[in-house]
């Protein structure tokens, strides 16, 4: 079964990990846990590099930057192939960066 881990980052609350070593060990632990499970992985650029397209009536409106009202931005998506939703959730719980991070685990629809 495939699940997408959609990694969301709160613009105001997010903080980097306290030390490099902790950051490395947590990241490496998470990464080792991905063993044989990653199907696809996308890491996105910073929100200020984005361009937002909306519509006013039928007219598209193109603005520089992310949607200003949004508190969170998508940082990346990792698609894993695992035995159960539980397994995907467990992987998400080991994600290294924590403060201001929210991960949505969602099934990938196939067929």
């Amino acid at each position: 079964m495939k699940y997408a881990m959609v990694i969301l980052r709160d613009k105001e609350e997010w903080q980097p990990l306290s030390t490099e070593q902790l950051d490395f060990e947590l990241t490496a632990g998470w990464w080792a846990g991905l063993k044989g499970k990653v199907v696809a992985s996308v890491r996105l650029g910073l929100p200020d590099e984005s361009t937002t397209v909306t519509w006013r009536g039928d007219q598209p409106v193109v603005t520089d930057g992310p949607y200003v009202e949004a508190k969170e931005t998508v940082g990346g998506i990792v698609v894993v192939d695992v035995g159960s939703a539980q397994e995907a959730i467990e992987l998400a719980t080991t994600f290294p960066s924590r403060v201001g991070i929210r991960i949505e685990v969602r099934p990938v629809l196939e067929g």
Partner: protein
Amino acid sequence: MNEASQALEQYVRDESARLVASLTRQLGDFDLAEESVQDAILEALSHWPASGVPKEPGAWLRVTARRKATDRLRREARYRDRLQVLGKSLERTVDPDQPGVIDDRLVLIFMCCHPTLSREVQVALTLRSLLGVTTAQLAKAFLTSDATMTRRIVRAKRKIVEAGIPFAIPSGDEIRGRLSEVLTSIYVMFNEGYLSAGPATSQREELANDAEWLAGLLRQLLPEEPEVTGLLALIRLHQARRRARFDDRGEIVLMKDQDRSVWDRPAINAAIELLTSALRMGQPGFYQAQAAIAGCHAVAARWEDTNWELIVNLYDQLLSIADSPIAALNRAIAIEYRDGPEAGLAELDSMGKSLDSYHLFHAARAQMLRGMGRSSEAADEDRLASKLTSNPAELSLLQRRIEDETFIKDGHGHRRQ
């Protein structure tokens, strides 16, 4: 080996890659460049033993190779247009500190790794032109005869010429298609420099430095490829600990006994940051796994602080990417440190005979047996190990261990623990 042939071997390995690469760029002809460099080496072989090693052997080889290329061009009556090129830009060198400059050798690797060639020939050609590995050594490494290897190389070179493979770094998707072979070549180059398998020297620092530099260039080309970043971090983590690897007498110091105060901490921290950024991309790969394992050792303030649990998990990841008996051996050693020598030995013994001819397998078994107090079996294993390696630093380490075991067995007590 006499002085002249030792010096020649050294310079062939140090200089021939540069030479072949820069001549290829100037002549636009890999085959001609390689032949000319080989000619120069042959000339050195016949002159140096009698006349002595020239003051600047590298420059001597460069001048001679250029002369040989001119001779060949003249002979083949192709010289009119190309001689001019040869006259110019010959002393062009690359400044390693200047970003954005692509080393000719990196281009050479990409050329040798062209997909029209079989993978085996790609690696053979790269090793030959980059490391100056001889055809005879290649034949041995690929378990085939000299004649077969010669034929393969000749065929490969003909293919490069006939297919008109350009001396250039490919673009876009094509670069990714050749990436795995290119990474392998740089990795082999680094390993050869970091711990040479041959009897002449234990460390070939310059080759290792060059591999680091090439990996850095490759990262400039492909900053978003986590495996490229992984390889660079791996090389830098090893380099940062280089000074602690050998003692004053040139003998290997095991990781456990290394003086961690001489590790280059700022370099380690920078490499760890680089590696962490690659791991965050969530795309598992061989070099990232190796680098992460090296990183676990590098961040531990003391040997006792090593995170063996994480190391075992990373070995599991590594084995799922590339099933290698050597990685399995190292995993067993990590299990020994996590759970004790009995657990480690059980892992080793479950691996079967795949590593019976590998000296480090026996050295590891010896260490575990020693940990369990079975010292005479340990000495037997060390003896087996020393029969299987030709590296002088490793040999002397094993020799010391054998002496220790014999000492203990003879009832004189512990000498070194």
